[in-house]
C-alpha cells in the first residue's frame, strides 16, 4: 500500500498530506518572508541596510528604534494626521459605497431595466454641453448643471415615443464594471478640475466621493451575485404584508447577506485604504493619506527604507486585525456569492 493511498474514505493519505502541507508551507514562507524583511528593516540603522544583507536582529545586526522614534516623535502629527485622514476616508467611503452599491445591485437583481439608447445619448450630450459651458465659456457650474439637467429631462421627454434599441441588466452590469478600465492617470486631471470647480479640493469629502465612485463597480458586481442567490419567497411574503421595498431591503435582505457585505466591505476598505494616485491629486495638506507618506519616503536621497518599513507596518496592522476578526465572514461571504458565480 503506497503512502499516496488513503486508508479511509474522505481522509488523506500520509504522502498526500506531506505534499499538501509542504506546498502550503512553502507558500506561507513566500508570503511572510518579504513582510519579515520589512519588519526587520524597520529596526535597522541605515548602515545595516546598505551594508546588507543581515537577517537576524541581535545576531547579524543591532536593532535600533531610530526609525520608529522618527515616525512617531519627530514626525509626530505629520504621521498621525494622514493616518487619521486615511481612517476617515476609508471608513466613510466604504460605508457610502456599500449602501449605494448594494442598493443598485439589489435593484438589478430584482427588477428588469430597459434603458433606451436614445435617452442615454441625450444624457451624454447634456453632459458634454455642461462641460463646454463651464470649461470653454466660463459659466458658473451651478447654472450649467441646472441647464444641463433641464435639457436632459426635456429632451428625454420629447423623444419618449421615438423607437430606439434598449439595453438590459447584463449590459448595465458590464457597463459598470467597464468603468474600471479607464486608467486613473488620465481620469485624475478631470476629477481634479471637477472638485476645483466645486471648491472641495483637499477635503475628505472629495476623497470619499471619488473612492466611492471608483469602488462602486466592484461592490455592484460582487453583491449582485450575492442577492441573486437569496430566494425570493421571503420578500414576496413580506410584500404581501404591505412592507415597502426599502424596508424589505434593510430588514430582510441586508441581514441575510451579512457575510457578503462584510467580505466585500473589507475588500473595498483595503482598496481605499491603499489608494495612491487619486489621493495625490485631490489632497494637498489637510486631507493627505498614508500611501502618500509611504511614497514620500523616496526623496532626493533615495528611499529611506527604514522609515518606509515602519509606515508599511503601521498601515497593515489594523487591516490584519480586522481581517482576523472578520475571518469567519470572509470565507462564508464570498462563498454564497460564488455559488451562482
Amino acid at each position, binding site marked *: 500500500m503506497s503512502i499516496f493511498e488513503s486508508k479511509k474514505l474522505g481522509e488523506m493519505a500520509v504522502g498526500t498530506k506531506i505534499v499538501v502541507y509542504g506546498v502550503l508551507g512553502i507558500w*506561507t514562507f513566500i508570503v511572510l518572508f518579504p513582510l519579515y524583511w520589512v519588519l526587520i528593516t524597520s529596526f535597522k540603522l541605515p548602515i545595516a541596510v546598505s551594508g546588507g544583507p543581515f537577517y537576524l536582529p541581535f545576531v547579524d545586526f543591532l536593532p535600533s528604534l531610530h526609525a520608529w522614534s522618527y515616525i512617531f516623535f519627530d514626525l509626530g502629527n505629520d504621521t498621525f494626521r494622514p493616518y487619521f485622514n486615511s481612517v476617515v476616508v476609508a471608513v466613510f467611503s466604504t460605508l457610502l459605497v456599500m449602501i449605494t452599491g448594494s442598493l443598485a445591485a439589489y435593484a438589478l437583481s430584482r427588477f428588469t431595466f430597459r434603458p433606451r439608447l436614445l435617452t442615454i445619448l441625450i444624457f451624454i450630450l447634456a453632459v458634454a454641453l455642461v462641460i463646454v459651458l463651464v470649461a470653454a465659456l466660463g459659466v458658473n457650474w451651478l447654472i450649467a448643471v441646472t441647464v444641463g439637467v433641464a435639457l436632459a429631462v426635456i429632451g428625454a421627454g420629447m423623444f419618449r415615443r421615438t423607437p430606439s434599441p434598449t439595453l438590459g441588466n447584463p449590459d448595465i452590469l458590464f457597463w459598470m464594471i467597464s468603468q474600471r478600465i479607464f486608467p486613473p492617470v488620465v481620469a485624475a486631471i478631470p476629477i481634479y478640475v471637477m472638485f476645483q470647480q466645486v471648491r472641495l479640493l483637499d477635503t475628505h469629502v472629495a476623497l470619499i466621493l471619488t473612492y466611492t465612485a471608483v469602488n462602486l463597480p466592484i461592490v455592484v458586481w460582487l453583491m449582485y451575485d450575492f442577492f441573486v442567490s437569496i430566494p425570493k419567497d421571503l420578500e414576496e411574503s413580506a410584500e404581501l404584508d404591505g412592507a415597502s421595498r426599502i424596508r424589505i431591503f434593510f430588514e430582510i435582505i441586508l441581514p441575510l447577506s451579512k457575510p457578503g457585505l462584510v467580505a466585500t466591505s473589507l475588500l473595498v476598505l483595503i482598496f481605499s485604504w491603499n489608494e495612491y494616485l487619486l489621493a495625490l491629486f485631490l489632497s494637498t495638506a489637510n486631507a493627505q493619506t498614508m*500611501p502618500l507618506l509611504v511614497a514620500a519616503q523616496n526623496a532626493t536621497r533615495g528611499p529611506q527604507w527604514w522609515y518606509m518599513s515602519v509606515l508599511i507596518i503601521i498601515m497593515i496592522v489594523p487591516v490584519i486585525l480586522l481581517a482576523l476578526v472578520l475571518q469567519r465572514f470572509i470565507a462564508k461571504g464570498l462563498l454564497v456569492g460564488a455559488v451562482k458565480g
Partner: protein
Amino acid sequence: MEHTPLETWQTRAVDWFDRHSGRLFVLPASLLILAFSIFPLIISAWLALSRFKLGSEGYELIFVGWNNFRKLLFGSEQYHLLGTFMPTSWLGWLIVAAAIVLIGWGIRSFVTSGHVTVMGTIGRLIAFGLFAALAWLFAATIGDKGQIGSLSTTIFYVFLGVAIQFVIGAGLAFLCSLRIRGRSFFRVVFFVPLMVTPVGIAYTFRMMADMTVGPISPLWHWLGLGGFSWATNAWSARLVVVLGDSWQWIPFMFLVMLAAFESQPKDELEAAELDGASGFQIFVDITWPSVAPVAATIVLIRMIEAFKIVDLPNVLTNGGPGIASESLTLHAFMQWRALDLGASAAISYVLLFTSTIICVSFFNFVVNPARRARQ
C-alpha cells in the same frame, strides 16, 4: 376613515417611492459612476486631440487633430508604443502561425454554432481583427534586433501575470479546500499581501530584488550569478515585475477560488467517492465545472485591473532597462509628468481601446458561456 391632507401627501409620497424603488435604488450609483466616468472620458478625449501649452494666461489647449496619435503610431514615438520593427524571426513566424490557427478555429466554431447574427459577426470581426493585429505586432517586433513597445509589454504583463496568479491562486485554494487542519491559519496568512499598499509592495520588492544587499543576494552569488543583474536584461526585468504583481494579487484569486471550491456540491462529491472515482476524475467531472463560472469572472476582473499596472515597473525599474519594462500606464504617466498631457491622454485611449476589446471579447467568449453552461 378620513385622511388629513398631510397624511395623504405622505402616503402618496411613500407610494410613489415604492413604485419607483427599482429606479431610485440604481440612481445614486449610476449618477456617481456617470459623474466620475463620462466627464473624465470626454475631457481626456479633448486632451488627446490637443497640445497642452503654458501661456501667459495659465494654460491653453491647442487643437492638433490626430497629431498625438500619429506620432505614437507612425512617428517618432512609434518605437516607444509599438516597438522597433525588424524582419520577422522564427519566433515571429511561430506567433503568426499560432494566431492563424486560433482565429481559424474561432471562425469555424462561430459558423458551425448555428447562431450567426449581425451583432455577433461584427463583434467577432473587431475581436479577431485586434487579435490578428496584436499577433502581427508581436511577430514583427520580437526578433533579435527588434524591441517590443509599451503596448506589447502591457499585454505580456496581463497575460502572463493573470495566468500565474490564476494557476497558483486556484491551486492553493484547492489545497486549502481539502479537509486539512489549520485551514483558517492559511486563509488569513495567504490574504495578507493584498492588504499592503501597492506602493509599499513595489518598494518591498525592490528591497527583495536587490542583488547587492537584498536577502537573496548571497544565494545569487552562490549560484555564480553575481556578475548578472536581472535589471539589465529586458525579459528578466519584465519577469521580476510580473513576480511582484503576482505576489500581491494571488491572494485575491485565492480567496474567491477558495469560496468557489468550498461551495461545490457536497452530495455529488460524496457519491463519486463512494463509486470509487479517482481524485483526478472527480476534479474534472464535478469540481471544475462547478467553479468555472467564478473562475471566468474573477479572471476578467483581474484582467481589467492588470491592464493598469504602473506602481511596480515604476518603482522597480522605472521602466528600464531602456524602455523594456514600461507599461502603457507608466508610459502615459511619464508623458504626463513631462507636461505632454496630449500624448498622455492619447496613450490612455490606446490602452482603453485595447483593453476594452480584449475584456469585452473575454466576457462574451469565456465568461458568458461559462455561466450559461452552469445554468
